[in-house]
């Protein structure tokens, strides 16, 4: 993912055992794709009842880490515990507690919105009445009632994101893992979704979102982890991590890479020179 795959600390600090009380506990996750090490030893605890933000530059390993944490990608090394259940040892039990919105995957888009939600609900083993009831509620909440009978393939990018989010929530999981949930979603829907997620957290659920919009994470999340080059650079409550700075400044400090250059001079004069 990134060429910034610096070696792990020379003498690795003793890694504490997985936190079995945490909603999500990652220990020593490694993943290599060919020559590239995408994730190089990620340790992370997501406390139960937290609204957890995962931030990092492009190619930092966010999606890879979340994929391994939700059972979509088998790690080369490391463990994942979901509320104390070892995900890769007992996938069925652990997956039942997870609701997942992966980034960059398709949906079964030849189904209508209502059918897709029904499909997700039935796959989760819910009975017909519960599925029907929750489908209605979710369509309402996502403002998709009018498009319930439209094929998902005809949805806009934002609507697709929302129906994917709805199918991740239909079985009332204890942990929601959402990869870039607000991408392409309009501000009104985003605010509605944030309200839903906050309500869910207030009732004891745990939400993990990845994003590269620092401002959003600072306002929305209780906890945050900064990932770059396949490592966790900082993790904790938002106020701990950012200290006196804004999250964005802290992030840039940690990750680096800002250039003070005059670059692309030709671009500025493009209208004059052509």
């Amino acid at each position: 993912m990134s060429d910034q795959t610096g070696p792990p600390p020379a003498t690795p600090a003793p890694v504490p055992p997985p936190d079995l009380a945490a909603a999500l506990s990652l220990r020593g996750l490694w993943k290599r794709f060919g020559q590239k090490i995408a994730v190089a030893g990620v340790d992370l605890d997501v406390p139960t009842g937290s609204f957890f933000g995962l931030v990092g530059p492009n190619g930092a390993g966010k999606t890879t880490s979340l994929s391994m944490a939700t059972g979509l990608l088998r790690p080369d090394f490391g463990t994942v515990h979901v509320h104390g259940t070892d995900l890769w040892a007992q996938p069925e039990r652990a997956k039942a507690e997870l609701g997942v919105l992966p980034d960059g995957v398709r949906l079964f888009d030849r189904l209508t919105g209502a059918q897709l939600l029904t499909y997700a609900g039935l796959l989760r083993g819910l009975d017909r009445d519960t599925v029907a009831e929750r489908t209605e509620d979710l369509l309402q909440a996502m403002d998709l009632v009018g498009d319930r009978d439209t094929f998902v393939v005809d949805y806009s990018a934002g609507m697709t994101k929302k129906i994917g989010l709805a199918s991740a929530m239909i079985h009332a999981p204890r942990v929601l893992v959402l990869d870039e949930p607000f991408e392409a979603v309009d501000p009104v829907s985003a605010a509605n979704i944030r309200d839903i997620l906050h309500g869910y957290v207030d009732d004891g659920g745990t939400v993990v979102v990845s994003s590269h919009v620092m401002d959003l994470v600072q306002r929305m999340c209780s906890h945050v982890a900064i990932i770059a080059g396949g490592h966790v650079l900082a993790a904790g409550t938002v106020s701990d991590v950012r200290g006196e700075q804004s999250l964005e400044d802290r992030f840039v400090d940690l990750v680096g890479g800002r250039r003070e250059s005059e670059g692309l001079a030709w671009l500025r004069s493009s209208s004059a020179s052509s």
Partner: protein
Amino acid sequence: MVAQLVRLKLTLLANTFRRSVWQTIGLVVGSLYGLGVLVLVVAAAIVGGTADPALTGHVVTVAGALVVLAWWVVPVFAFGVDATLDPRRFVTFAIPRRTLLAGLALAGLVSIPAAVTTLGALGVSLAWWRQPAALLAALVGGVLATALCLVGSRAATTALAPLLDSRRYREVVAIAAVVPLVLVGPAFGWLADGVEVAAGGSDADALGAAVATLAQVVGWTPLGAPWALASAVHDGAWALLVARLAISLGTLALAWVVWDRALARELVTPHGGGSSSAAAKGLGWFGRLPATPLGAVAARTATYWVRDPRYAASIAMVPLLPLVLLAVGMTNGAGGGLLLVMAPLAAWLLGFGISNDVGYDNTAFALHVATGTPGRVDRWGRVLPVLAGGAPLCVAFALVGCAVAGRWDALPALLGLTAGTLGASLGISSAVSARLVYPVPKPGESPFKSPQGATMATMVAQMATMGITLAVSLPTLALALTAILLPQAALGWAALGVGLVTGVLVLLLGVRWGARTYDRRLPELLQQVMAFG
């Protein structure tokens, strides 16, 4: 610009070598095979040309016409066109269409089938090595024929693509594409007649005369005209030469214009058209099948068989089977007897339809992974709708076949063979598709577009499925064929028994093995389809 496109295609071809060892091996094996066939054909042409140039010229004309026909029809039907250089990817680069077209045409030469065709077309010209004038004409004809193959196949697929996207026209196009196939029947019948008429002479003479008549007709068609140039020079028929040249060039120009127009339209039409933004009321199958994970997968599968053009295209063949078989049977004298093949063939096609189901799901399969859907549920959910819809259809086909052929005595054997084939192909497909996944057109793409760099993976997976299915069906097949051809009633009942047992057993074991493989490599399966992009 043209050179850059050709270079791009070469780079892409070279990169397929770097992607995986198996693809490299496949490509090497494919190249060697192509080369072997090429050497044989050219050697045969030279030997034939030395002994009897006139006859060799006729054979080249007929065979060449078949090659051109294959280039035009097969991509529309089966494998799709090589989409390595998808014109849509060049939309944002502001390349003049004329340049783009020339570049795509030339870059089309850079692929194994195209290279084999080119070398073959030029190689068979050597049949005329004794007559320089004819050799020259043959070389010109070879170049023209290759151009016709490439441009014609592009024109056909590009022009038909928008139609194939929309469901209403799809059946019409499928039927239209069958017409040339149906015409093969009369051609053979006619050839047989020619042999009979000339039966007075020796067999070789008779065959030669028949080929000559056939070649004369084919030489007038756009398919055969370029191949027949040299024959015209050999006969000293200059007017004929000019006419054939005119036909070849005219067809080439027409195909070029069609391709140009179609490409112009495709470039401004947004990707994945056919979004009629139609709506489906209610829950469809989801409301009718049991509210369990298994019922849900079955409902989803059933919905997709009807609504996803990629599945619908693969089963569009099934209702056409009786028509094709009847047409072929009528013209070549086999009569209605050929319709007996219909039921087992349909059974095999239906079973084969799910042999790459995860590939068809593409990354939407992530839902099954995220929800932890067990292999047993996934596999049976995909099999059951095909079984429920296919079994009655196959029985009906068997009954109709027996009725038309007037062979009610063959019914037990036929039913046994059909049941065995359906069960075996479904079972083997379930097992293989959990192990071998290959790229197919993505959801929403034209079902006739073949994804890039995957030809070998596709062939390996399909060959494995077909080969294993055939192997497990062999006892039933042998019994049923003996029973039907002898005819032998007792054997027919034995075939029924063996067929039913084979079908049920292979289905159960195949699904079970597939489910276990699926459970073991669920995340890996997802990563495989993710890699298709």
